[in-house]
C-alpha cells in the first residue's frame, strides 16, 4: 500500500551499507553505526510490511470463515451402482440423480424428471421456481427446460441427468471467470495514499538531492553527503504511517462488522464513504422479501393494512359483516400451512409451506383471527380446485362451522376480473346487493388504484349452496364441476406487495442528504418498481417521470422536455436500445432513476455508465450473475443471507443482514475514517519538518547535529504511533452525512493546504521550539549559540580533544559526543512535547477544541500518555545503551518547549476561528485542509 516509502527506505538502507563499505575500505576500525542504521531501516520496512500483511490477512480470514467450506456431494450412477462422490470429481457423461433440496452439482441435461422445479434466481434473477422436464424447448441453454445449472437448487421433485459440463466450463463458471476478467481497479483510498506517497517521496527526494548537491559544492566529502542524504530521507518518510493507516482502517472495519457490514479488503472501508451512486437491488435489500397484505377493499372502501415487519398494528375497521365473510374466504381458500413444530415462533417468522401470496394471506389471517388451522378444521374442506394459470382462480368447498347451517360454502379467490365475471351480487355492509354497472365501476376504480400501487390484487367471492340441492352427503367432483361456478357474491379485494423494510425510507433520506444518488435496479415490473421506489423515497413524493408530466399536461410523451422530469423509470428493453451516450445523458439529467425489468447483465452496463460520470459506484447484488457488476463496481456489496458464494467472493463487502440501512452506517464510517486519516496524516507529516530542519541547519550553519537518525526513528515508530492511531477514534466534527460525497479528483486525502499547513506552519513552529530546547542544553553546558555556528568540523574531529567552549573549558571528543546525544534527547523531547499540542489541534479541522470536547475521545489521552512514557523510558531507562544515543535529561528541559506547544495550539485555534467566521474567504481556501 505504501510501497513508495518502502523503496525510499530500502534506498536509505543500501546507502547506509555503501557508506560503511567506503568507510571500511578507508579505515578498518570505522564505527558500525551506519551498518546498524541500515539494518534498522531494513527491519522497519520488513516489519511494517509483515504487520500490514497480517492485518490484511486477518480481515480476509473473517471472510474465509464466512464461506461454508462443506464439500458438495453428488449422487452418481457409475458401474451400475449408485455412489456418493464429491461434486468436484464429476466428469462429463456421469449420470447424476437429484432430488428436492439438492444443489445441482454440475450443468446437466435431464433424462427424466418427476415434478422437478429449480430455483435459478442466483443465475438469472428469476425468483419464481422454474419447472424442469426432459423436453427440449429453446435453443438458448438458459431458456430450455431440459437443462439445470450448476449451483442452482432443486426445490421439489426428482430428476436424473447426464453431466454436460463441469467446473469452469459450466455457465456459472463462465460468469465467474467473466467476473475475474473484470479489471479490479484501485480503491479510492489506495489512490489517495499513492498520491500522498508521491508528494512525500517527491519532497524527500528533491530536498535530499538538493542538499546532496549543496553539501558536495560546500566541499563536504561525498561520504558525508551520503550520510546527509540518508538523514533527509529518514526524516521525510513517515515510517510508522503504513502501520497506522492499516490499524485505523482495521478498527473501522471492525466497527462496521459490528454494524453488519463485513468488509473484505481493508481499503474498501473508505470506499463506501466516498460513494456517490448506489445501484441497489430491490428485492430483499430495499424490501422485506416477502409478500404482505397491503390494502383491502370492501364496502366500497379502501383500507390500509400494516405492512411493517411484525404486522402488529392492524387498524382498519373490522366491525363490518363484510369483513367477517372476507376473512372467512381468506382463511379457507388457502392451501398454505405452517410447518409443524414452531409453537414459540412469532407468526411473521414462522416457516410456511406454500407460495408467496398464500403465505402472505395465511400470516395475515393468523395475525388478525388467531388460530387459522383451528378455523379450517371447523370448516372441513370437502373439495377444492387449485389455482392454475388457465383458470386464474382457486376454489374450495367447505362445511360451515355453524351446526344449524347445513349449507356448503363455496369460496373462491383469483384474478379480480375473473372473479368478478363469476359474480352476480356484491356484499356491502354484510348485505348482498345486485352487481350493477355503477358498483362494477367502483370495483374497477379500486382495482386500478391498487394495481397502480404496484400491488398484486386478488378478488374474493363466496356462495352458499342451497341445502336442498346439495345435501350433506353430496359428492363434489371437481373434474365434472357438478356445482355452480357462477352467481357468486363478490366480497372484496385484497392487494399484496413485498413491502419496503421499515428502516429503508429513513436510510434513503440520509443518503439523499449525504448527496448520494440511489438508483434502483430490479428485474421486477416497472409499476411495482416505481411504487416501491416511491414508498421508500428513491423517487421523492413531488417528483415526476416523463410519463407523469405527459399525463399531467395531457400531451404526448415525446413532447415533454426531459429535463422537466426529475425521475425516470427505464425498462430493460429501453436500456437495450440505448447508446452509451444516451445512457450518460439519462444518468446525468435525472436524479432519481429506476431500472426495471433489467437482466442482470445490464447491471454491468449501468455501473459502467455511472463510472463514466466520475462517480464512485456501490452496487448491491446477490446472484451469481451479479458478480461481474459487483466486481466492476468501486465497491460491490453482496447480501449475506440471500447472496450466493460467487457474489460474496466478487464483492468487497458483505451485508450480514441484507439491509439497505446498514449501507448508510457503512457510508458514515467510511466518511469518518477518511476525515480521520486526514488528521492522522497531518499529524504525522508535521514533525517531518522538525526532523528535517536539523539536517539542513547542520549542513548549512555547521551546528553540531541536533538530532540523530536513530532518534528520528524513535519518534516515527515510537512516540508517534499510538497518538496517530488514537485520531482514528475521533468523532465526526459536523454531521458528515449532510455533505456531498467527496469528488474523486478534487477532494484529495492530502491536499495542498494540508501539506502546506503541516510543513510550513506547524512543522516550522515545532522545529523552532525544538531548536530552543537544543540551544538551551548546549548553552547551559557551556556552548553558547554563537559558539556553535560553524563548529561542526572541529566538533566532529575525533582527534581534537581540547575543543574550547564559550567559557574557556576544553572538551574531549567523547565528552562532546555525549553532549551531542544529550542534544538529540533534548530535541527529541522538544518535538515530543509539541507533538502533544499537534495531536490536540488535529482533533478538529474546523471546530474549536472546546466544541469537540477535549475528553470525548479517551484514546487520545492514552496516546499522550504513551508519548510521555515512551520518551521517559528512552531517556531514563535506555540512556545507558550507547547505540540508541539517548541520555538522561534534566527535568526542566522537558518543559522548555511547552510555551511553543501552547503557541501552536493558540495559532491553530485562531486559524479555525477565522475559518468558521469567514467561510469561503481567502483564509478558508488556503488554511482549511
Amino acid at each position: 500500500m505504501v510501497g513508495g516509502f518502502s523503496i525510499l527506505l530500502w534506498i536509505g538502507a543500501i546507502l547506509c551499507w555503501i557508506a560503511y563499505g567506503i568507510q571500511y575500505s578507508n579505515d578498518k576500525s570505522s564505527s558500525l553505526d551506519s551498518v546498524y542504521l541500515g539494518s534498522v531501516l531494513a527491519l522497519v520496512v520488513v516489519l511494517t510490511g509483515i504487520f500490514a500483511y497480517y492485518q490484511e490477512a486477518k480481515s480476509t480470514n473473517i471472510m474465509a470463515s464466512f464461506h461454508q467450506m462443506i464439500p458438495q456431494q453428488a449422487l452418481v450412477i457409475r458401474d451400475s451402482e449408485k455412489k456418493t462422490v464429491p461434486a468436484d470429481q464429476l466428469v462429463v457423461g456421469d449420470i447424476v440423480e437429484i432430488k428436492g433440496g439438492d444443489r445441482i452439482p454440475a450443468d446437466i441435461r435431464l433424462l427424466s424428471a418427476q415434478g422437478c422445479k429449480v430455483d435459478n434466481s442466483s443465475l438469472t434473477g428469476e425468483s419464481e421456481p422454474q419447472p424442469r422436464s426432459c423436453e427440449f424447448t429453446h435453443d438458448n441453454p438458459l431458456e430450455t427446460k431440459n437443462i439445470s445449472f450448476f449451483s442452482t437448487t432443486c426445490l421439489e421433485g426428482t430428476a436424473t441427468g447426464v453431466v454436460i459440463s463441469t467446473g469452469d466450463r459450466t455457465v456459472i463458471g463462465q460468469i465467474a471467470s467473466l467476473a475475474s476478467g473484470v479489471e479490479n481497479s484501485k480503491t479510492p483510498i489506495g489512490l489517495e495514499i499513492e498520491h500522498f506517497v508521491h508528494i512525500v517521496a517527491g519532497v524527500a527526494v528533491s530536498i535530499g538531492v538538493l542538499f546532496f548537491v549543496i553539501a558536495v559544492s560546500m566541499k563536504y566529502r561525498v561520504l558525508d553527503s551520503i550520510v546527509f542524504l540518508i538523514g533527509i530521507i529518514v526524516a521525510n518518510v513517515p515510517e510508522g504511517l503504513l502501520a497506522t493507516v492499516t490499524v485505523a482502517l482495521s478498527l473501522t472495519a471492525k466497527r462496521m462488522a459490528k454494524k453488519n457490514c463485513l468488509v473484505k479488503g481493508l481499503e474498501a472501508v473508505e470506499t463506501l464513504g466516498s460513494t456517490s451512486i448506489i445501484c441497489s437491488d430491490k428485492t430483499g435489500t430495499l424490501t422485506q422479501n416477502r409478500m404482505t397484505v397491503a390494502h383491502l377493499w370492501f364496502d366500497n372502501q379502501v383500507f390500509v393494512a400494516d405492512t411493517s415487519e411484525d404486522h402488529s398494528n392492524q387498524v382498519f375497521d373490522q366491525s363490518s359483516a363484510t369483513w367477517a365473510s372476507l376473512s372467512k374466504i381468506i382463511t379457507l381458500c388457502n392451501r398454505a400451512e405452517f410447518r409443524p413444530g414452531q409453537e414459540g415462533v412469532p407468526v411473521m417468522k414462522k416457516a410456511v409451506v406454500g407460495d408467496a401470496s398464500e403465505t402472505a394471506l395465511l400470516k395475515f389471517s393468523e395475525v388478525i383471527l388467531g388460530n387459522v388451522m383451528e378455523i379450517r378444521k371447523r370448516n372441513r374442506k370437502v373439495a377444492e380446485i387449485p389455482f392454475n394459470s388457465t383458470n386464474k382462480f382457486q376454489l374450495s368447498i367447505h362445511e360451515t362451522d355453524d351446526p344449524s347451517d347445513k349449507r356448503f360454502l363455496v369460496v373462491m379467490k383469483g384474478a379480480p376480473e375473473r372473479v368478478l365475471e363469476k359474480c352476480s351480487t356484491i356484499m356491502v355492509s354484510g348485505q348482498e346487493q345486485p352487481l350493477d354497472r355503477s358498483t362494477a365501476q367502483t370495483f374497477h376504480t379500486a382495482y386500478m388504484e391498487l394495481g397502480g400501487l404496484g400491488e398484486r390484487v386478488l378478488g374474493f367471492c363466496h356462495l352458499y349452496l342451497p341445502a336442498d340441492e346439495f345435501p350433506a352427503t353430496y359428492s363434489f367432483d371437481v373434474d365434472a364441476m357438478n356445482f355452480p361456478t357462477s352467481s357468486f357474491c363478490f366480497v372484496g379485494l385484497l392487494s399484496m406487495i413485498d413491502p419496503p423494510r421499515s428502516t429503508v425510507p429513513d436510510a434513503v433520506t440520509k443518503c439523499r442528504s449525504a448527496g448520494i444518488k440511489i438508483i434502483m435496479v430490479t428485474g421486477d415490473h416497472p409499476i411495482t418498481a416505481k411504487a416501491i421506489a416511491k414508498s421508500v423515497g428513491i423517487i421523492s413524493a413531488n417528483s415526476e417521470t416523463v410519463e407523469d408530466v405527459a399525463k399531467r399536461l395531457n400531451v404526448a410523451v415525446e413532447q415533454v422536455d426531459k429535463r422537466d422530469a426529475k425521475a425516470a423509470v427505464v425498462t430493460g428493453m429501453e436500456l437495450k436500445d440505448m447508446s452509451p451516450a444516451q445512457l450518460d445523458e439519462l444518468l446525468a439529467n435525472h436524479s432519481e432513476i429506476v431500472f426495471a425489468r433489467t437482466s442482470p447483465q445490464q447491471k454491468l452496463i449501468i455501473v459502467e455508465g455511472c463510472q463514466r460520470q466520475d462517480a464512485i459506484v456501490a452496487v448491491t447484488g446477490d446472484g451469481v450473475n451479479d458478480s461481474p457488476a459487483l466486481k466492476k463496481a468501486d465497491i460491490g456489496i453482496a447480501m449475506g443471507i440471500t447472496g450466493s458464494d460467487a457474489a460474496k467472493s466478487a464483492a468487497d463487502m458483505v451485508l450480514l443482514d441484507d439491509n439497505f440501512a446498514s449501507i448508510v452506517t457503512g457510508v458514515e464510517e467510511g466518511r469518518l475514517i477518511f476525515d480521520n486519516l486526514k488528521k492522522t496524516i497531518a499529524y504525522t507529516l508535521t514533525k517531518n519538518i522538525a526532523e528535517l530542519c536539523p539536517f539542513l541547519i547542520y549542513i548549512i550553519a555547521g551546528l553540531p547535529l541536533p538530532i540523530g537518525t536513530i532518534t528520528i526513528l524513535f519518534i516515527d515508530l515510537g512516540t508517534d504511533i499510538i497518538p496517530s492511531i488514537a485520531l482514528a477514534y475521533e468523532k465526526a466534527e459536523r454531521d458528515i452525512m449532510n455533505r456531498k460525497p467527496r469528488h474523486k479528483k478534487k477532494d484529495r486525502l492530502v491536499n495542498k493546504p494540508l501539506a502546506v499547513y503541516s510543513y510550513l506552519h506547524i512543522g516550522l513552529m515545532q522545529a523552532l521550539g525544538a531548536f530552543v530546547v537544543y540551544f538551551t542544553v548546549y548553552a547551559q553546558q557551556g556552548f553558547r549559540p554563537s559558539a556553535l555556528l560553524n563548529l561542526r568540523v572541529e566538533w566532529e574531529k575525533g582527534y581534537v580533544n581540547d575543543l574550547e567552549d564559550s567559557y574557556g573549558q576544553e572538551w574531549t571528543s567523547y565528552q562532546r559526543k555525549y553532549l551531542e546525544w544529550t542534544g538529540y534527547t533534548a530535541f527529541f523531547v522538544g518535538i515530543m512535547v509539541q507533538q502533544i499540542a499537534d495531536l490536540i489541534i488535529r482533533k478538529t479541522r474546523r471546530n474549536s477544541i472546546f466544541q469537540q470536547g477535549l475528553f470525548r475521545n479517551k484514546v487520545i489521552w492514552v496516546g499522550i500518555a504513551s508519548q510521555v512514557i515512551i520518551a521517559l523510558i528512552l531517556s531514563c531507562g535506555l540512556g545507558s545503551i550507547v547505540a540508541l544515543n539517548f541520555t538522561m535529561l534534566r527535568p526542566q528541559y522537558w518543559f522548555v518547549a511547552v510555551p511553543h506547544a501552547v503557541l501552536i495550539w493558540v495559532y491553530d485555534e485562531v486559524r479555525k476561528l477565522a475559518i468558521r467566521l469567514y467561510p469561503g474567504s481567502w483564509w478558508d481556501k488556503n488554511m482549511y485542509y
Partner: protein
Amino acid sequence: MTKQEKKSFNQSLAEWKLFIYNPTTGEFLGRTAKSWGLILLFYLVFYGFLAALFSFTMWAMLQTLNDEVPKYRDQIPSPGLMVFPKPVTALDFSFSVSNPESYRGYINDLKKFLKSYGLEEQKNLTNCPSGVFREQNGPEYTSCRFPLVLLEACSGVDDPEFGYSSGSPCILVKMNRIIGLKPQGEPRIECILKGENTAVLSTYPSNGMIDLKYFPYYGKKLHGSYLQPLVAVQLIFGNRNDINEVTVECKIDGSPNLKNQDDRDKFLGRVVFKITMRP
C-alpha cells in the same frame, strides 16, 4: 501505444506550460499576481513573527546564563589530555631529520602555542607559591606564571627547533581546562614508551609534575590571562640512521579525582601518540 504515450506527453507538457503561466487567467504557477502577493505578504508577516518570537526566546534564554561560569559542568567532570604540536589528521607525528620542511609545521605550531608563555607576556602575572591551590574571590583574578625554563630542553629557548633537527623531538602535553577543577593529591603526567624501546624518554619538568598553584581555573572571562601548566616529552632516539617508530602513552597520575581510564573516552586523562622519525 507509443502514439498514445506521445500524445499524453505532449498533453502534460501543455498542462505544465499552462500551469507555469496561464495567459487567460493571468495565473503564474497556479496563482494570480494578487494571490501571490497576498500569500507572500502572509508568509512575510507570519515568518517575521516567528523569527521575532524565536529571537526573543533565545534572548530570554541567554539572559538566564551566567557570563562567567556555565550553568552546568556535569558533562566534563574530569579533564582530557591533549598534545602539541596539534596533529593534522590523527595523533601521528612523522618527520625526517634531514628534511627541515617535514617538521617546520610542528615547530611553527609549538612556537605559536608557546607564544603566550613568552617572558614579555608573563610580565604581569604573579609568582605564586607552589604546592597549594590558588583560590581567589575576585573581583580581580590573577594568574600564576609558568616559566618556560621548566620545560628545559623543550622550552624552545635554547633550541628553537625543539629537538626536531637533532633527532630528539619534543611533544608538549597539556591537561584540558575545566572551571573550578581542583586535583587531589600530587598530579603528574607520566609518559611511557610502548613496545620496543628504541628511544629514551624524558619528561620536563622532571617527573611530569603539575603544580597545584595553577588550579582552580575561573573561566575565560574572569581568568583571561590564565596559563595552563605544561609537561614536555622528549624522545632521544639511539639510532638516527634508521626509521624509528615509537608509541608513547601519557597518563595523569597521582590524583584520585582525575580519571585516566575510561572505556569509551580514550582521551580522558590519557593520550596515546605515535612518532615516526626517518633519517
